[in-house]
């Protein structure tokens, strides 16, 4: 028996399309966006950095893409037929799709792209379940799995380090060396490191006829502007000044003070991209006393999460303990973390903590340092001695991701995982990666949720995972944070999403 996944996906996508208010759309002009960092690479398979994603998802497309509510819907594929044993997916490709070099996209390009990603993609584990990929027609690709993977379409549509389809000859290039030639609504023009990336409207682009409106990373991508320039401006003040001087149209990440100041000014629009990430506090379970459940519970009971979020992300946070965003079918109304110092002190007394100094590693991004500082003060009330070690991201991540020593606590945000869904949220805790100690229960749930095709059963597994994260204090979900995106009033029909999408917008 076979099932047509596409029919349901398309019906759902069309049904939820909201009819946008009629506005006079103007064609032309270059939109200038200021973002904080330059992309480490424009090879979409090579990096999962947000700075690269912002640009690459204008240039490249995937077989399936996430809609506004993070569901996987067809993009370069018209759909997929799944075999009755769940081990074979046959993708039918859209016809007439052109790459920016003028070549038609065929099954050979898709096979080459998927094979490249399997070998060395930045998030190769997303396609780890694939056994083989083959072209079974000029516009048909068959993917065979080693074992059933319920999240295959979700994984193929992940925007993290997108499994972008590129011409076969580019897919033959070493990782990081592929030219930015995709099928997306914008084509690459130039990349001046430390300055900008320029994209131009791809005039041969045909919006997906299955859709009528912009919808997440999928939908009908209609481009009104001539081009987009992503300028790299690390200084927040410089981005604000550039916006107010009319040099840029969108500050992708503004600060709360500026957002409040410009909110009442008709020349600007302040958009809250909330939620954009979860703020997570990790424990190093390999280092005493964080290996002690009583100690971790004491910390969890002593934490005033709202005080931390309110200080680190003023006016742009939301207290929500679910590990996925509201709107996801896996979202739950978990009880909020509640500070209870008496209970915390009792738990601490049962732990093996003897007053030793504990190390909190944190990168130098201001909100993360603020969160760590408030946490340090709260731990002082409990009687836990915390020392902050602030460094840049390459230093902190090299310690936190690879070492069992030199740290006890670490805070950073999880942005894309809660958007991607349950398997992606569980994944960082599998094989003890995030907490530095194996947790066979979590490992088993990860395998189970990947193999489970029934939605209700998946939700139960994920609820169990969320409960375990809280009960065992594996790590603390402090709350959800957002971004202030500040745009010129000239930029019309802009809507905050995971990246600053420039299709569907126009300049007045």
């Amino acid at each position, binding site marked *: 028996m076979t099932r047509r996944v596409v029919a349901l996906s398309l019906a759902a996508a069309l049904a939820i399309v909201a009819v946008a208010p009629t506005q006079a759309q103007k064609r032309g002009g270059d939109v200038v966006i200021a973002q904080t960092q330059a992309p*480490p690479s424009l090879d979409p398979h090579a990096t999962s950095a947000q700075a690269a994603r912002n640009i690459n998802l204008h240039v490249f497309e995937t077989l399936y893409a996430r809609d506004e509510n993070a569901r996987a819907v067809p993009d370069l594929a018209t759909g997929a037929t799944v075999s009755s044993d769940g081990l074979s997916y046959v993708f039918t490709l859209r016809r007439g799709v052109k790459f920016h070099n003028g070549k038609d996209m065929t099954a050979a390009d898709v096979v080459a792209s998927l094979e490249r990603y399997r070998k060395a993609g930045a998030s190769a*584990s997303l396609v780890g379940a694939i056994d083989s990929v083959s072209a079974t027609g000029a516009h048909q690709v068959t993917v065979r799995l080693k074992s059933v993977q319920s999240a295959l379409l979700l994984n193929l549509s992940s925007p993290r380090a997108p499994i972008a389809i590129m011409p076969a000859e580019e897919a033959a290039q070493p990782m*990081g060396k592929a030219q930015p030639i995709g099928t997306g609504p914008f084509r690459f023009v130039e990349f001046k490191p430390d300055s900008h990336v320029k994209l131009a409207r791809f005039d041969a682009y045909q919006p997906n006829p299955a859709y009528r409106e912009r919808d997440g990373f999928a939908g009908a991508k209609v481009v009104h502007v001539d081009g987009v320039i992503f300028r790299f401006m690390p200084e927040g003040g*410089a981005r604000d000044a550039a916006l107010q001087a009319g040099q840029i149209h969108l500050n992708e990440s503004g600060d709360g003070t500026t957002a409040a100041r410009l909110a009442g000014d008709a020349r600007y629009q302040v958009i809250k991209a909330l939620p954009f990430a979860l703020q997570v506090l990790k424990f190093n379970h390999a280092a005493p006393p964080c290996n002690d459940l009583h100690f971790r519970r004491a910390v969890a009971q002593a934490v005033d999460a709202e005080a931390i979020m309110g200080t680190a992300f003023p006016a742009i946070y939301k207290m929500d303990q679910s590990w996925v965003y509201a709107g996801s079918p896996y979202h739950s109304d978990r009880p909020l973390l509640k500070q209870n110092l008496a209970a915390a002190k009792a738990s601490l007394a049962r732990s093996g903590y003897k007053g030793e100094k504990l190390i909190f590693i944190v990168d130098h991004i201001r909100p993360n340092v603020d969160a760590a500082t408030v946490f340090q003060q709260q731990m002082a009330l409990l009687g836990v001695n915390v020392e902050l070690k602030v460094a840049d991201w*390459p230093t902190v*991540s090299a310690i936190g991701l*690879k070492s069992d020593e030199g740290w006890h606590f670490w805070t950073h945000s999880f942005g894309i995982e809660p958007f991607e869904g349950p398997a992606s949220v569980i994944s960082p805790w599998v094989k003890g990666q995030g907490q530095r100690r194996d947790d066979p229960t979590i490992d088993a749930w990860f395998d189970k949720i990947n193999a489970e095709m029934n939605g209700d059963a998946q939700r139960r597994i994920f609820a169990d995972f969320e409960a375990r994260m809280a009960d065992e204090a594996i790590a603390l979900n402090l709350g959800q944070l957002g971004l202030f995106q500040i745009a010129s009033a000239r930029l019309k029909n802009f809507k905050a999403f995971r990246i600053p999408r420039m299709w569907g917008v126009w300049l007045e």
Partner: protein
Amino acid sequence: MIGYTLRRVLASLPVLGLVSLISFGLLWLVPGDPAAVFLDAGASAEALERVRRELGLDRPLLQRMGHWYARALQGDLGQSLLLNRSVTAALLERLPVTLSLATLSFVLAVLLGGVAGVLAALRHGRAVDHGLMALAVLGLSVPEFWLGMVLIWALAVWLPLFPPGDYVAFAVDPLRWAWHMALPTFTLACVQVGFVARMTRSSLLEVLGQDFVRSARAKGLPESQVVLRHGLANALMPVLTVMGIMVGALLGGAVVTEQVFSIPGLGRLIVGAVLSRDFPLIQGALLLLALIYLLVNLVVDLLYAAIDPRVRLA
């Protein structure tokens, strides 16, 4: 002179070798993994290792070092880990931007600082002297990042006379280049104006009090000739030494100024390379900066001889 110059150039080669060796050692000591820049916070250690292999960072340090020296001796500084181009190309693209910013600031600092210093010396102890020296101390004390931000708000946002940032190449549009460089140049020059003004004033005051100046005045030479020909010419030696140091300070200050004004120069490149641990790029940039310092010192030494015939180059 030619023999001296050649000997100095040859003597600088071991210095460059030492700089590269020290920078390798420092990079080895500094923690951090460039592979992390390619990945997000939820990345696995496995993904990190894969990127490390792709970047060639899994090879032992000594092997990487040997490989680098072998290529550097042939004029190849290697490939940047992040920019997807050669280190030499990346440095040469940005060098003109930073050099033009530093040169403009240097000229502005010498002109403004020199004039202020001479005026203060000639009006020694009067209101003009006190006022100019107060301004000089203020200029010396203002941090570049703060001054840059204030200038942006005052002259780009509040009174939109200049652009708040960005860069236009001279070859593309000289007028727009000058317009874009105005605020960064003033920001970078400000500290040095104070420095030059104070140094010129004290040096000139010392010279003007000497016997040969009194003799010049006694001969009935006009005051302008006394000050410019006899006074300032002799006061230039210490100022020249300061100017050599200034070049280094300007290159250092360019790092901050380029960040504030979003100018794609050498300073911004180095900051990005350090933050992302782009080792080959850091290595190449340090070598280039060392070379610039050596050249500047050589030029200053040669100028000593040109200005003061008593100085003989051994």
